[in-house]
């Protein structure tokens, strides 16, 4: 499975960034091989529609799964309609989040966790 994780740093020992649209980095990891790459979230300073923009970026990376903390309604809509499974994780490292995901211990997100701030 190709997983996207919002992260505070650029390696697997970094803390998970609980923000989605305005997270610092994205770590794209293969849950079988544990190969990964980290990309800057270049959209984090966007003034408008950052949720939609970042969700589009994640889709375009061809992932099946996203692990993050909080998700706004627009991003949630884009991701869920495109068929990406979203899991919720709190304060932990990226490695720990992937482990819990593999063990089936992460909770699926069924919708947005935050209100729109228009």
């Amino acid at each position, binding site marked *: 499975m190709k997983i996207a994780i919002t992260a505070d740093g650029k390696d697997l020992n970094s803390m998970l960034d609980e923000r989605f649209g305005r997270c610092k980095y994205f770590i794209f990891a293969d849950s079988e091989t544990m190969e990964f790459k980290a990309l800057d979230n270049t959209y984090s300073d966007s003034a408008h*529609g*950052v949720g*939609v923009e970042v969700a*589009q970026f994640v*889709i375009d990376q061809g992932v099946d799964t996203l692990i993050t903390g909080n998700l706004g309604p627009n991003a949630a*809509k884009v991701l869920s309609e495109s*068929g990406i499974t979203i899991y919720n994780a709190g304060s932990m490292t990226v490695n720990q989040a992937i482990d819990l995901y593999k063990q089936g211990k992460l909770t699926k997100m069924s919708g947005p966790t935050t209100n729109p701030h228009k």
Partner: protein
Amino acid sequence: MIISVASGKGGTGKTTVATNFAVALADIYKTALLDCDVEEPNAHLFLNIDKRQYNLNEKVFLPVPQIDDKKCVHCGKCLEVCAYHALADIGKKILVFEELCHGCGGCSLLCPEGAIIEKNKQIGDIKGCNVKGLDFVFGTLSIGSVMAPPVIKKVKNHIKQDRLTIIDCPPGTSCPMINAVMKSDFCMLVTEPTPFGLNDLKLAVEVVRELEIPCGVIINRSQDGDHIIEKYLASEGIPILMKIPLDRRYAASYANGKLLIEDYPDFKAKFIETLKNIEKWVKA
């Protein structure tokens, strides 16, 4: 001539000034009052209007895209041009986030397949009538809508060259305020003699200077603390147009939805004198 009434800080008395000023001048000039504070229009409350009087009733629409999935080839042109990220391509279809759309029309213009048509989404309405001898127009932003500028622009479409036009502006210094103040010949900034009033007055002055609109200040609830405002205005070379003293009787008049110039006719001459001064500055 177009005179906008703005402030920076909310609750300083913009609507009090705008309504009294407009009604005072309507005796002498052909005057129009436009309430462009579309998120919370309330100038009409001071004009004793019966709803049946409104003979101007318009709806304000924003053109938002509608995608024909059969024609769309997912080329990505519409996403590229949308500065507000109101579109997302999830492979099988394009999602449209209408509340993010600013209605610029770029996506439908650039779609090479003609797969985007625009539909009108109502974002507000405009009402108007003739009352107390003046042309009165105001706009209201629909509940849940966030796009104030298109509604403000629609209100301002009712500006007529042969009228002295007074514009009641929204507070703040962002898009709605700027859209309301834009293209006026003079801006009256209403403030109160408090550190908060002064702070936000400075912000508003920066905006009107950026727009190259001359300005003057009305100190409302004027009392002992005026010197902080006066000191700033003197250093910036900005004239004080008028002072409205802090007086319980004026507050009571306001609270009853009445005009100061009707309860205290002395104000009428002061507003007229203020206009004469503004005319001199604008012409100079």
